[in-house]
């Protein structure tokens, strides 16, 4: 086990979620915006309309400074936060998908090269080549999405990988295609909103409104197709996930989906009303409000995707507490649950090697380590904790004494959203003794 980083009240997982939500918008924008850009630039080149270049230059600078950089820093940020919150989880992904990420990195590099050159050569190289630069960026950025979708999808549905250990078997899993289509539609929708904001601020009102209208058509197409593909995506989810989300289990998942659907609907209305019917009314403030609505919607959607893979962090393979759940013979991987249930986990804890388990206070310390490693990824330990506070939950199920808690560990695996307990009787006793020292959270 790696050292553990404890984030009071909210757990370290929330730090990932926090950074990830700042990543979603800029990254989808950085991916989608240039398709629209290239479309407008093509108009400018083919129909010889230089007045459109004003839009291109503004649009690009904002994408460059805001989206591209925030997108790449928060992208690295998700990585770093996953590293400190779930080191074994990210390690598992990286050791299977390192070449996927490395391939994506090639496209990152192309993105940064093309976007800077695109911006700084606007009006300085021949128009055809400039347009091609824009297209190259759009392609490279979208391909980076084509790749990351495979890895993200793998975490929720690991496909045939569990049998074969094959890179592509996990990559092209059952949710890959629907997810790719949803994200692609969505990125066009986001680009549409963003373009309406920039266009509504243009000095040349007639051109501005024309662009608003075009952007709205893109937006509507993106939203409609996005909705269709989302249904396909939900349909493709494994039964166990559907059960957990729609029939009891974790009802909050359903709420998240509703939030996402409502946000979706509002954005669609925006495009219809402000884009097609009254383009002169589109403005910065409404645009930004709509961006926020979409932000919440996408956040809810990603929250659903993240939540739906419980109790796993990598579907079927690794539990949320970073313990390997089963054998993967193709890779020579052995279940750690089985190993620890047989041999005990405290004995194998390097950090506990100095503890003397005959002393009561050392037993508490060992128990705390176990609780951190086995429950701390998903539960906070404070009574007033925000994310699934263990004291209140234990009181809710009525297990507050050490022996009762130890006994309760056998029941963990019966919950559809919790991993089974990976330890022997000694481990159960220790964790029980520690958890019993937490303040009681019952009413």
């Amino acid at each position: 086990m790696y050292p553990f980083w404890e984030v009071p009240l909210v757990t370290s997982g929330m730090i990932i979620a926090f950074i990830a939500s700042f990543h979603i918008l800029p990254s989808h924008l950085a991916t989608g915006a240039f398709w629209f850009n290239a479309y407008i630039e093509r108009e400018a080149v083919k129909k010889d309309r230089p007045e459109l270049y004003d839009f291109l230059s503004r649009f690009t600078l904002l994408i460059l400074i805001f989206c591209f950089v925030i997108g790449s820093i928060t992208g690295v940020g998700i990585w770093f936060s996953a590293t400190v919150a779930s080191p074994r989880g990210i390690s598992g992904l990286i050791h299977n998908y390192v070449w996927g990420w490395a391939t994506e990195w090639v496209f990152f590099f192309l993105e940064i090269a093309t976007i800077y050159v695109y911006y700084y050569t606007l009006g300085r190289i021949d128009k055809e080549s400039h347009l091609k630069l824009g297209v190259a960026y759009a392609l490279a950025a979208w391909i980076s999405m084509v790749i990351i979708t495979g890895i993200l999808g793998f975490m929720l549905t690991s496909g045939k990988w569990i049998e074969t250990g094959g890179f592509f078997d996990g990559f092209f899993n059952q949710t890959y295609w629907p997810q790719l289509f949803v994200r692609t539609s969505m990125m066009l929708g986001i680009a549409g909103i963003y373009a309406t904001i920039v266009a509504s601020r243009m000095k040349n009102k007639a051109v501005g409104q024309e662009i608003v209208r075009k952007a709205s058509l893109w937006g509507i197409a993106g939203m409609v197709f996005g909705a269709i593909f989302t249904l396909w995506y939900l349909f493709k989810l494994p039964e166990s996930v559907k059960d957990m989300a729609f029939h009891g289990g974790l009802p909050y998942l359903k709420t998240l989906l509703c939030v996402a659907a409502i946000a979706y609907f509002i954005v669609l209305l925006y495009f219809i009303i402000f884009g097609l019917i009254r383009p002169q009314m589109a403005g910065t403030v409404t645009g930004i409000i709509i961006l926020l609505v979409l932000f919440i919607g996408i956040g809810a959607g990603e929250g659903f995707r993240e939540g739906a893979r419980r109790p796993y962090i990598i579907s079927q393979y690794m539990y949320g507490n970073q313990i390997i759940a089963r054998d993967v013979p193709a890779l020579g991987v052995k279940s750690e649950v089985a190993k620890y249930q047989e041999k005990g986990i405290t004995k194998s804890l390097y950090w506990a090697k100095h503890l003397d388990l005959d002393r009561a206070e050392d037993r508490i310390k060992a128990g705390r380590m176990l609780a951190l490693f086995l429950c701390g990824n998903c539960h906070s330990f404070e009574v007033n904790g925000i994310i699934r506070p263990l004291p209140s939950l234990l009181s809710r199920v009525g297990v507050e004494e050490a022996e009762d808690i130890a006994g309760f560990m056998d029941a963990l695996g019966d919950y559809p959203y919790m991993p089974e307990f990976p330890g022997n009787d000694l481990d159960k006793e220790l964790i029980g003794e520690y958890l019993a020292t937490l303040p009681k959270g019952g009413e």
Partner: protein
Amino acid sequence: MDLAQFLNGMRDPSGVPFFPVVFQFLMVLTFTLHIVCVNVVVGGLAISIWEAWKGGPYGRRLARGLAKASTIILSVAIVLGVAPLLFVQVIYDPFWYASNTMSAIWAMLFLVWVCTAFYAAYGFYLGNKKGDAYGELKLFWAYVAFGAMALAGITIHTLTMEALLPDMWHKWLIDGNGALLTGGARFHGMALGRLLHFFMASFAVTGVYMILYAWYFSPRPDMEPEYLAYVAKKGVNIALYGTLLAAATGFWWAGEVPESLGFLSNPVFLLSVLAAVIFILYLANSQNDPANHAIPITVLLLITVFVMSYAREILRMKYVGAFDYSIFAYKLNLSWGSTLLFFATFVLGLVVLYFPLLCAFKTGRTEPGKVVVIPEKVGSLANILLVGWFIVVAGLGIIISFKNGTLP
């Protein structure tokens, strides 16, 4: 449980999908490119502050040039940094993850520093863009950017050092009462010589960047030859003294390395010293007309930094080797398909990259107002390759999906 057993047991059970030496090579290569960019940003900000104070009109113009460069090169540095970050996690996962979780708050703050540095650099550049190129500069954002870069550098340095000292981990993480520390707020392991070495190298690299700058802009009629000569002269001096200081701090660093590792007699280390000596001699020899030697100087610099980075990697192998950890003992689960995907994409990427680089190179050398014409085929080829990549991968994906029953 002893430490070696613990460390080796922490390796990822999935093993690695290709021979570790390949990841190691790619790690060193991409680290070289990354650190060169970081050096230009750190050195460039420091030199532009200095030139804005003391440099006279040419110095102030140079400061503006470096300000603009720092924004672009920092974003390139960020992207380049992703690669060694990825590869280190493949072959040195037990070390990297332990140090990061141990100092988690610092790992998070690192992002804050980088973000701050980027926007401050932009503030510095945009705040001084308008108006007289030779006029006084506003420096507030330059200080912020430099400070943030320094903090980012110190943070990564510490995370790296902590990773190399696993025998200290237990002590660092268990408090006086024997309980596990979980705050992630402490950081350890600073090695001043090593840190300063990277800092001094920034001047060496930025000096070379300035020589290259003078060479690159020399054909442009709107660039005053006197200004370019000023930049080249400054550049070669800074490169020379920067390298000497880097060498001095390098020996300090060498003194910090435990003797038991036998690092100082390692051939790669000796080779890196030799490379540095050749580089210094060549610089000293080009002092009269540096811009004309820009290309060989740059090539020599890159070779030197690459060999140095390899020496740094050898040092890491020695550190972890003391605990019976070897990257070559990693379990192999060969994945030829994905390895091929990467290398094919890598080659394709280099070809595509030619297009933006050509556009940038040509426009930069043309005075503003003139339009550069790029051969039509270059851009078309780039885009055809990108589309081709997608068609091949999507085709493969569809076949696999039908075979596995994940489609329809």
